[in-house]
């Protein structure tokens, strides 16, 4: 019997289907005990877990640390955090840096739930079975994994703000500052993943508050273990103020109305690209786009992300019509991630500018200066004809900055 056939014992109870998935995540202990697995019952995958542990240990024993293995389109990425091993097996097109970053976030999520005292548990008992402690948290991990594909914050290492009038934002921040003396280290108000009031910049726990709209979250952090009632008080006070003031109304309205659209980017009247976008979309895809679909912003701009390096904040536009399809959007985020990883490579980065053009998704242009970064995606033919993106950069800069403060 060949060696290959000895792996068939991973076909427990028909869970062979997990092998065909595009992206797996595994968390295991350094003694090979499974802790978390995205697909399949982690206990049934005990044998596989042990193999992963053996690989990591084998390399560690020789004085080295394994980073990843690549075979064709598959990448197996490893991350070791003390007694915890995290592994991602993926055949998506993501970069090693991207996947590694995702493993870091998975670890962070695990710590959020269990705190760092897990290290002490393993010190006391290397064969400690941590899996039961994570019981019921599947949804949390799945939501995080989903964010890897759909939330650019995961690779930009930045968060995004809800556009609000200055006054509203100040009011929200003020109400949080009021509770500072009750031992709260940090407070965060969020709506649909966009924050509108922030006190400090580290996030560790999330509580959905009663009385606030369902999509609004208040996060309070305190280092004191006996602070439960104080936190309850703080929460009630904040809630009161928010409900009585205009803040929440403004927030809900802003969610729906203050979106950034590529069509709103001002056209430079001195530029040459006054030609109708519809003409140039031929030849890119097999089916010609109608004149409606081809319209994006100026120079055929379809999407942009602007990140402020100093503030670690970003804003992004809505997807223009040509990329309304979720599959295309997912692919676009992957493209952004690749460009980002390329520009921020430790040895050769950061690059000042990068321009990419492929047949898949048009142009991807990124121009970075000290203060801000701009990612743009546009329909490639237009970009080639006009090569105007460099000159557009300055207009984008002022436009985005204004948008942030509304």
């Amino acid at each position, binding site marked *: 019997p060949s*060696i*290959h056939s*000895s*792996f068939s*014992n*991973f076909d427990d109870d028909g869970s062979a289907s997990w*092998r065909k998935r595009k992206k797996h995540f595994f968390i295991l202990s350094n003694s090979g005990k499974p802790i978390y697995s995205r697909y399949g019952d982690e206990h049934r995958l005990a*044998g596989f877990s*042990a*193999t992963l542990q*053996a*690989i990591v*240990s*084998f*390399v560690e*024993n*020789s*004085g*080295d*640390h*394994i*980073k*990843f*293995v*690549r*075979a*064709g*389109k*598959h990448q*197996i990425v490893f991350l070791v955090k003390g007694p915890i091993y995290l592994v991602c*097996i993926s*055949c998506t*097109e993501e970069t*090693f840096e991207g996947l590694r970053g995702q493993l870091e976030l998975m670890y962070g999520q695990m710590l959020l739930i269990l705190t760092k005292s897990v290290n002490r548990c393993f010190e006391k008992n290397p064969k400690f079975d941590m899996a039961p402690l994570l019981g019921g948290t599947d949804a949390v991990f799945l939501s995080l994994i989903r964010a890897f594909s759909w939330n650019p914050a995961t690779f930009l290492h930045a968060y995004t703000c809800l556009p609000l009038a200055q006054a509203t934002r100040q009011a929200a921040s003020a109400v949080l500052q009021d509770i500072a003396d009750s031992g709260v280290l940090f407070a965060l108000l969020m709506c649909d993943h966009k924050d509108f009031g922030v006190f400090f910049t580290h996030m560790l726990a999330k509580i959905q508050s009663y009385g606030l709209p369902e999509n609004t979250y208040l996060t309070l952090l305190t280092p004191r273990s006996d602070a439960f009632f104080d936190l309850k008080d703080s929460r009630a006070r904040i809630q009161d103020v928010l409900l009585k003031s205009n803040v929440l109304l403004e927030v809900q309205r802003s969610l729906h109305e203050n979106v950034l659209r590529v069509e709103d980017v001002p056209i430079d009247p001195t530029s040459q690209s006054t030609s109708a976008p519809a003409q140039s979309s031929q030849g890119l895809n097999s089916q010609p786009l109608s004149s409606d679909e081809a319209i994006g912003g100026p120079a055929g701009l379809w999407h942009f992300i602007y990140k402020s390096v100093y503030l670690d904040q970003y804003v992004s536009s809505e997807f223009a019509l040509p990329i309304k399809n979720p599959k295309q959007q997912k692919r676009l985020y992957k493209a952004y991630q*690749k460009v980002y990883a*390329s520009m921020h*490579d*430790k*040895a*050769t*980065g*950061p*690059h*000042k*500018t*990068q*321009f*990419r*053009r*492929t*047949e898949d998704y048009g142009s991807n*242009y990124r121009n970075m200066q000290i203060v801000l970064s701009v990612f743009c995606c546009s329909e490639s033919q237009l970009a080639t004809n006009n*090569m105007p*993106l*460099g*000159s557009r950069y300055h207009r984008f800069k002022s436009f985005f900055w204004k948008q942030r403060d509304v």
Partner: protein
Amino acid sequence: RSARRLFQSPRSATGADCPAGGSSVVSVKMGLSSAAEIDGAQLCIFDLRRGQQEGQELDKILFFHPADCPILLQLSVIGLCEGIITFTRIFSPEDDCEVIESDKHCHVFYQAEPDIWMVLVVQKIKDNESTLRFGALQGILKESHSLFAMFHGPIRTLLDRQPSAEFARGHLHTFVTDYLSDFSVGKKLQLPTYRDSLTERGTVQMLTVSREVALEVQSLTTVLGSCLRNVICQSIVLFEDLLVSTTLPLDDTLNLYTYAILRLTPSALSSNGNSWSYLRKGGYVNADTTLSSANGAAAAERYNSRSRDTSPGGQNQMHHNFRPLQREKLSKGKDGFVAADFATTEIRGAVPLNPILWFHQAEERMYLCVYQHKNLTILLVIPASSLINGEEGIAHVKRHLLENASQNIVTVEQKLSRGWGGENAYHVGGYRYILSDPNRKVSRASPPGKVITLSKDSLLALNRLRGEIDLEKSRAKRSDPTHDKDYEVCIRAKNNAWIIAKISRGKELYMAIEKGGETLLYASTAVEKFSNR
């Protein structure tokens, strides 16, 4: 055997000869020594169909460099490789394992023949991760295997004919060691790094000739082709280190061209004979005396005995120390023919050997005959099946060549010399580039003297970009092998240099421009100007 067991420490091989007076550190208790303690790179070749029984793991190893590496460490390296190969097959049965990246090492894999794997283990320089490129390193494995198969036939064939593997191991040992001697600096191997990002192994560099000269070359080729009655001979003509013409299929041309550049052209021959160049290149490796590892020692003993190698390539290479890559054996005779003298000292008056090569694409075994006139090198390739009495037949062919082709040869050489602009003839001022056509296996690049002027930052960025593009190309090929995807990347690096990659209709251009404008428009215009030239 479960997968896990593949990663356990190898037990000490029974019956193996341990190296006397080891200079390496071996942790006897663990059965493993730290791979990190081994200085420099390792190259191993192993057969997964062998050594599958407990205690027989040593049998897998066909070649290991350095040869004095402790047996337990060799087994440890191969154990890891085999384990990872098996592991990746779970998810990726169609695509081979390519690379293991760890903090301190990079393991590059290449499945040369079914179940015969070559792995290159490279030590990383700290903090400088982008210095290596997978494609460049794998290129070394591919090239060494292609050349080996040209002289000795496929490894699998050698193993099938002689399951004890003495000849396979012996031939691999001498051949690959000789091949690696080109990379040796002192005791270490200096493998391609970011400084070589404007080179492409596995391609031919061609000489562009005028129409008039092309016609002259064509008539020369015709004359060469008829050097043997009723049988067409194939030929390759080189001027300096560039290809002028070939009648062989693409892969075979590449193999023979590569060998010629390494050992047969005037510049290669001049460094063969110069003993000082050995010191520069790290010295002549005496394969016999370095066989101190158990596996190698046993093979060497049997190899040195008088047993004959009856493999297809071996019928002419019966002199057991046939080493086509051994520099000092090759020289140009007074008659203009370049020959290798592999005679052992016991056999007096031995005639210089004309090796038989195996041409994979042409599917034929052919004799190689090399003639050189000034800067012109002619590789004449004669079907072995047409020469009943090898050596006599070759002598006849040589006479025929001298009688009938001399005039053509002199004329072609004169015309090419006249038009030759020197090494910098293909240099395009202001650009540092490589232009390559992987489908035709042809490339053209800025001369090394010019590439050196690029800054380290530019070369690092270019190297990293090439690595990214390599990944994109493989992906594109997997999803649609028939269609060549276009791709374009322009980067303004942190040192303000423009690093550009452009793939269009299967052709690839990589470029670095250091003194350029600030805008993207400048960069794309520069590329267009270059393309027009």
